[in-house]
């Protein structure tokens, strides 16, 4: 990683710590900035102000509150499945963040098929949600779990197809390669801002953000939770520490998907290489390993802002409407996007 040659166990330890930070830090920042503060401002109120200056310690207070609650399990629930479900959902988040690069040398692993791996692993959370819905011995949770199964599987496809356009344009499935392609690329010969794929793949970006909103079960696609009907859907019977895991998983996944979107469409950890005269991955300076994560966090915040902004402003779709939207609108649009990308890639 750096000039120091660390033994394998030390590298693994750093990776584990780094992974935990990479999951919890976006979750915490998104929860405080957007869920507590931005939602409050949009509703003409100030949000939590008591715990810490301007309520910054509220998240720690909430975590502490959930940790000390009683572990309630419904009597008829399938105990082992009930206990495993939040772990499975959180597991997929950690697996997902392992593929995201944060700097020229600051990555957990460098997969050749990074995109393929990320999209495959993100489906594990569907299993977790289904497990939670079925094992809760509650009709409302069952309804929520079944809705989630249909919705999340339906929206996997637009997500994959939207990313295919980026892969065609970049020519590689490696996340690091995609970042380098965007930052060393040029638009019709002008390399002032590199070639962020949001400009050429705006359709793909749009479809990807909608699919991400659905994968996170955020309004307008929050039928599985549907607070006014199902009282938290598949999460109804969870309280205390288990609910905390669902909560962290929801916002951590939002953060990680925003990180992936910023890698795919906004140029990832990089700023256009032409500003500094770099040409390849090795020629990038070492301080980029520290600045890169900061740039990633900024871009992630921007995308998470959009996700949360839409979440607080719209009512929710009915599940047959959202299925119709996915199958009849998003998939054809993303297929057409792939067709155009392929044609233009060959032409130019």
């Amino acid at each position, binding site marked *: 990683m750096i000039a120091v040659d660390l033994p394998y166990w030390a590298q693994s330890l750093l990776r584990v710590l780094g992974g935990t930070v990479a999951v919890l830090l976006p979750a915490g920042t998104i929860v405080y900035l957007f869920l507590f503060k931005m939602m409050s401002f949009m*509703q003409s109120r100030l949000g939590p102000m008591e715990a810490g200056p301007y309520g910054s310690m509220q998240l720690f207070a909430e975590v502490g509150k959930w940790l000390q609650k009683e572990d309630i399990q419904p009597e008829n629930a399938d105990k082992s499945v009930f206990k495993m479900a939040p772990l499975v959902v959180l597991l997929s988040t950690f697996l997902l963040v392992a593929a995201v690069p944060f700097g020229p040398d600051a990555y957990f692993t460098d997969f050749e098929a990074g995109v393929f791996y990320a999209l495959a692993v993100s489906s594990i959370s569907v299993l977790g949600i289904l497990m939670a819905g079925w094992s809760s011995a509650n*009709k409302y949770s069952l309804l929520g779990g079944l809705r989630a199964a249909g919705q999340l599987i339906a929206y996997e496809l637009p997500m994959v197809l939207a990313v295919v356009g980026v892969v065609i344009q970049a020519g590689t499935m490696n996340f690091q390669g995609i970042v380098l392609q965007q930052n060393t690329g040029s638009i019709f010969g002008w390399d002032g801002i590199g070639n962020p794929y949001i400009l050429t793949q705006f359709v793909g970006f749009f479809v990807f953000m909608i699919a991400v909103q659905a994968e996170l079960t955020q*309004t307008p696609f929050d*039928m599985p939770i*549907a*607070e*006014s009907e199902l009282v938290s859907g598949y999460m109804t019977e969870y309280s205390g520490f288990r609910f905390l895991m669902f909560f962290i998983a929801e916002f951590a996944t939002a953060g990680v998907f925003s990180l992936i979107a910023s890698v795919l469409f906004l140029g990832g950890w990089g700023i256009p290489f032409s500003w500094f005269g770099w040409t390849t991955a090795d020629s990038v300076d070492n301080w980029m390993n520290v600045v890169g994560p900061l740039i990633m966090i900024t871009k992630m915040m921007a995308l998470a802002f959009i996700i949360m902004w839409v979440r607080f402003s*719209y009512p929710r*779709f009915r599940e047959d409407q959202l299925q119709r939207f996915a199958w009849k609108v998003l998939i054809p649009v993303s297929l057409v996007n792939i067709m155009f990308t392929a044609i233009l890639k060959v032409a130019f």
Partner: protein
Amino acid sequence: MSDVTDLIDRQKLSYIAAQAADARLNVELETEGMTLNIGPQHPATHGTLRIIARLDGEQVIWADPSAGYMHRGYEKLTEVRTYPQVNTLINRIDWLGSFANEVPFILAAEQLMDIEAPARAQWIRAIFFELSRIANVSLFLGDLGVQLGAITPVFMAFRDREYVLNLIESATGGRFHPNFDRIGGLKDDLPKGWIDETKQVMKKLRNFCDEIETLLFGNEIFQSRTRGIGVIPANVAQSYGLSGANLRASGVDWDLRRDQKIALPYDKVDFKVWTHPDGDAFARCWVRLQETREATLIVDQLLDGIPSGPVMAKVPRIIKVPEGEAYVSTENPLGEMGYYVVSQGDLGPFRVRIRTASFNNISIVPWVLRGVFVPDIITILASLYFILGDIDK
């Protein structure tokens, strides 16, 4: 007319088809439909309403409302209270637009006593009546968003409703339960500066209506959730006894403020009665939005024309209402509310029968919820708009 019969036939057919599907399921998979209890504790039922629904997957086969979890025994309570005490109690029937509950009762008692309140009192009564309508229906507009998943409009509703509640408090002393109407007039006159303040507040509420229209009604997702859902044709609505905005949204042009000769000065102001031909959930919500705006315009006109004079007629200190029976019903925020007062010359009424709007409004729930999806149950209940205190008294 034939398309209404078509609609009813289609409803019947879908009901039969749903029953057949249920039976088929039972045979094929040896499973039954699922019986789901919506309520009595549920975020969507505006209180403790219980709806027992039998579902086939996500579709409703039949649904039955089971009210009574909030029954407080008002009609029995009124038998052992005096008239001022009854006035205090009935504030709490429809607790969002409280002043509106007192009006028909006081008018019935005044009819029995053959007393007319002075003109100034009637005008101020009408102003408070419309203010309670605004307070009630502006909450509905926010609550509608929450039922459908939009969590922001409800905060705007509460924020702008505060202005109306502060107005009511500065004149009567109570935000939610004003207890302001008296037999023969009102308790007090308005404090200084109230008229100008009210005009400012009405402007703010019109801004609020515009904001809600942009944020909620203009939203394509909202429209796809509410258009064509829960269609109630006009004759079905009338036969089930719906009233208020529910009736007007099915195309029936019926408003007791205009159609009934009543002591309140509604014949002196110009107002439009909003109807909508569709009869679906969107129509009901839309009609209520327009009614809120119309109410602010009515208040403006009433404020300009308040006559001066006393607010209380000559009434004996101890009120004994002579024998007789009277029924007065008015166009309350939730619908038509009426009081049938039977008096035997005592300090208190002998029997009061309270005809509340929401009780009749939810009688249509079994009819309208057949064959709809579970999310549509919530939409339809939200658009019918009932208050549990009004149903259960």
